[in-house]
């Protein structure tokens, strides 16, 4: 996705499920048999090198989807296929950045990373592991804090270590569960920039949960919008049509930015609810609309948005 021409409407997500790197088919999760599933019939594909953000209200099952992708949780129905193999159980191929950073507090920063590296490369010598770990500590700019314990680091630094740890095992896909949720806005911005740079350099495939609309527009190639749970589903896939070289400083000057932003906010505050309230016509469940609000000239902020957005949708079975 990254190397494809941006803004090209033909670079749709519609037909990609057949050839996608990660394929999710008919995923559903039901915690109790006597209650409706949290989410149902969730299907999507992710290309290699693509950055996906998923947005939705609490309780729609985003984290569960991520955990299923990671192999930490099992879905009640459906399956996940990565690289033509079904995901069953956790694997080094899918690195996870936890919201609570989950660093081992009795190890220093470099030991934490080395722990991960040794898990991937069991036959490596101590020096080689240390050198490899040092490279990734450098990458997140924490070389000066390599000998510190996590308790001596600020929240932002801890999360960077978590990111470095996930990257150090060089997974095929990176899963991030609201990695910046607990950080203040300034720190968040700095780490977002860092993440963007690292992902561009390494062509990392990323699947990330976020609540921050701006963050999603900055980072993601495509944004999955989930309706409210129970029986949540991916209601829309917003293709980010902005140029790939966008940066945080100038992104808001692009007219596309506000169109996409308004579309996302509008979805979150109004339509996510109405889609759920509309019940669950079975035929509609499998339907995910793919939209490119960035390319629309009509501003979304007027009262007609419901009507105008509908005309833009391309329904995909």
């Amino acid at each position, binding site marked *: 996705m990254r190397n494809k021409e941006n803004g090209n409407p033909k670079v749709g997500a519609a037909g990609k499920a057949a050839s996608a790197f990660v394929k999710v088919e008919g995923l559903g999760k039901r915690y109790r048999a006597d209650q409706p599933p949290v989410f149902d019939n969730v299907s999507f594909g992710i290309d290699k090198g693509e950055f996906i953000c998923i947005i939705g209200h609490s309780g729609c099952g985003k984290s569960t989807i991520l955990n299923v992708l990671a192999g930490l949780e099992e879905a009640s129905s459906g399956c996940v296929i990565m690289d033509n193999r079904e995901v069953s159980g956790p694997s080094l191929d899918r690195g996870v950045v936890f919201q609570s950073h989950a660093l081992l*507090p009795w190890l220093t920063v470099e030991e934490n990373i080395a722990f991960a590296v040794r*898990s991937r490369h069991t036959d490596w010598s101590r020096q080689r592991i240390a050198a490899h770990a040092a490279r990734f500590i450098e990458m997140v700019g924490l070389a000066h804090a390599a000998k510190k314990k996590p308790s001596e680091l600020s929240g932002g630094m801890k999360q960077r270590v978590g990111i470095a740890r996930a990257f150090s095992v060089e997974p095929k896909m990176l899963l991030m569960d609201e990695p910046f949720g607990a950080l203040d806005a300034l720190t968040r911005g700095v780490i977002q920039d860092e993440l963007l740079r690292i992902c561009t350099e390494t062509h990392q495939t990323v699947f990330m949960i976020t609540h921050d609309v701006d963050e999603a527009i900055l980072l993601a190639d495509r944004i999955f919008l989930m309706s409210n749970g129970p029986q949540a589903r991916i209601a829309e896939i917003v293709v980010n049509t902005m140029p790939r070289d966008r940066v945080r400083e100038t992104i808001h000057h692009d007219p596309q930015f506000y169109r996409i932003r308004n579309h996302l906010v509008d979805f979150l505050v109004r339509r996510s609810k109405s889609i759920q309230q509309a019940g669950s016509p079975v035929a509609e469940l499998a339907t995910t609309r793919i939209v490119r609000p960035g390319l629309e000239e009509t501003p979304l902020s007027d009262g007609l948005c419901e009507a105008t957005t509908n005309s833009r949708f391309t329904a995909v079975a």
Partner: protein
Amino acid sequence: MKASLSLRAGLLSVLLLILLVGIWHLSTATSPVSGRPAVSGAVDAEYAALMGNGPAAATDKKVDGFPTPLQFLHVAADKLADPFYDHGPNDKGVGIQLAHSLGRVALGYLIALAVAVPLGFVIGMSPLMYRALDPFIQVLKPISPLAWMPIALYTIKDSSVSGIFVIFICSIWPMLINTAFGVAGVRKDWLNVARTLEVSPLRKAFQVILPAAAPTIITGMRISMGIAWLVIVAAEMLIGGTGIGYFVWNEWNNLSLANVIFAVLLIGLVGMFLDLMFAQLQKKVTYAE
């Protein structure tokens, strides 16, 4: 400010000690000699000497009744001057007695450690084992270790080994329960990290679960050691032969209270050192989140 606080605390401690010794001195100063009606005349003096109340008796090393602080110091100095003498089964130095007790505690405690920590790991990691073993633990835990003594003596037929068994049975529970508790309470995030990194079970046990649960385990070990040291004195009073507990009982039979007090103080000091050792260990494995 911090230094001055510890200084003031130390001063207060010394003051309290002086106060306590002062009270002790005042309440024992009314020695048998001065406490009785004054005797006069050579015959009376001779009679008093015969009764052990003569002027010489007051300064004699052999002290009857509750000693004064000074008499106690004499006894303590004597005992410490030669702690390792061995004059037959009823007369050994306190060093030897202490070594016997410590040896029993160490042996029983180590065996308990070797059983409790692995078993605690299993219980902590497997809800099935936890539920299956819980009734046993709940029933066995509150049994006074000394209640095991007759059973141990009958089946083992060796008083010294029975003592070790009693130490084993009393120190196993805190370690077992704390290990299980610590292992079961390891943060799910850390286990998930280990899972996503495909860490082998053995490595997970030693490099994730053990360090995560170590503070709780060490706390259990510390409690166990405290209990073991409490129990050994009582156990040795029962089984006799050697050990600091036996020494206390023996000196009580000799009515040598100075020796009893000396031994009691020694038990307290050794217990404190054992506890300090574990406090150090605990400091080493504790981590800040």
